[in-house]
């Protein structure tokens, strides 16, 4: 099977004694929505940062579209949109100027700016400075930054943090639409299990730096009929506890 993103024996530690990731093998199939689940401190963000080259890789391999990431870092990043931990925005600029900063680098059409702002519901913010935005608005603008250059792979780390229920539904529907209509592969990490249940086609569960489950969501839910994802998740990580 062709994976858009694949990690092999990915291990990482911030100190020698305590590894944060232990042989993580993540396999994200093309055109799927991959829900990356794990409790706080399980290693989700570290994995995503390693994939994007934000952390120096210590051990293991990372491949995008079947090729090692190091082979063509710039070319691959051109096709990846990301949102890690919290939105990266310049507070003194407007939403439009924030997108313009990244549009220059991606050299994508300028029309994408307006389209992305409309897409995330920020089309009417005008010259308002981002520092005056609510947390939810910032979160949506962060997603717009990730979508600006129409990436083939979207890597989102907790994209619904700080959003109200209405905003969460909006983001969920947006991601589904992007996946269905444009075939964008989405890797989304979240601690909101109900969200992943409603959104993902595939899932991976990480606990204490180790992958404890990986496969389709249907398969996981099928293993434990009449049980919701929350219970399955809790049972899965409980089984792994030493």
């Amino acid at each position, binding site marked *: 099977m062709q994976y858009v993103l694949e990690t092999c024996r990915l291990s990482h530690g911030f100190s020698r004694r305590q590894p944060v990731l232990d042989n993580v093998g993540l396999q994200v199939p093309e055109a799927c929505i991959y829900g990356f689940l794990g409790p706080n401190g399980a290693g989700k963000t570290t994995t995503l*940062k390693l994939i*994007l*080259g*934000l*952390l*120096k890789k210590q051990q293991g391999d990372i491949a995008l579209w079947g090729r090692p990431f190091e082979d063509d870092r*710039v*070319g691959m*990043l*051109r096709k*990846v949109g*990301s949102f*890690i*931990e*919290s*939105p*990266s*925005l*310049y*507070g*003194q*600029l407007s939403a439009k*100027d924030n997108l*313009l*900063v*990244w549009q*220059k*680098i*991606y*050299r994508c059409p300028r029309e994408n700016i307006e389209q992305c702002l409309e897409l995330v519901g920020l089309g009417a913010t005008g010259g308002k*400075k981002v520092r005056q935005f609510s947390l939810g608005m910032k979160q949506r603008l962060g997603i717009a*930054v990730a979508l600006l250059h129409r990436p083939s792979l979207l890597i989102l780390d907790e994209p619904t943090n700080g959003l109200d229920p209405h905003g969460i539904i909006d983001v969920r529907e947006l991601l589904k639409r992007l996946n269905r209509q444009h075939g964008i592969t989405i890797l989304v990490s979240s601690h909101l299990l109900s969200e992943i249940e409603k959104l993902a086609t595939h899932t991976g569960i990480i606990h204490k730096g180790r992958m404890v489950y990986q496969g389709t969501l249907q398969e996981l839910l099928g293993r434990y009929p009449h049980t919701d994802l929350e219970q399955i998740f809790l049972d899965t990580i409980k089984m792994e506890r030493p």
Partner: protein
Amino acid sequence: MTFFYSFQSEWLKKKHSAAAALVWVGAFLIPLILLIVRLKKFGSLAAGNISPVLWEGLYVRGWQFMVFFLLPLGVMLATSLITQLEYRNNTWKQAHTTPQDPCILYLSKLSVILVMLLQFFLLFNVGIYLAGIIPTLFSGVPYPLEPFPWRKFLEGSGFFFLDTLPIVGLQYLVSMQFRNFMVPLAVGVGFYVASMVAVNWEYGYTMPYCYSSIEFLHGHMTKREPAVNIHVWALAYFAVFIMVSYVLYRTKRDKS
């Protein structure tokens, strides 16, 4: 071409920032003070404007205040503020996941600082010029008799630009490494004080922050020839700081 787009992006980031405001305020502050002082002595304005040393006088007084205080502190602050834009807004992680070589990102950010410095010098010269001609708006004050010595002003600014490069280099190095804005500020103030103490010392030229002061003292106060070519020393320090900074930047384990 990639550099060009990266530079455009970096230039846009400083829009409405404190660093951008500092360039304008810093460049026009001293000319404004000089203008106010001139207007206060209204009676001597006419004679001042026909004096053959009008521009020389404004130049010396302007740079005197500039090189000893505003220039080093302003450069220190502006360089640190530009770099800190990424830390403060949590945007390094986004910048490092864009399709550009980190070397391009590093150089374009540095180039923005250097262009801002050039902009500052240019605006300062315009300010001095305005301090000379604005009084002619009042009746009885003639237009300066002596033509504005653009060449001398630009040449002088060029040397001060070179002499300021070590400050840019070291501030860039420190502020790229530390998230806390106080660290580059403390390092800068420390070097600035040390340089002010050492400026008249025989080996003062070894201090990277005092070249603009030495240049001014040599040209207008002591007329004493420095023991070494301070411009070469300034360039050498800048090159070393920038290279060390680049190595530290590239080898950083966490780029988020």
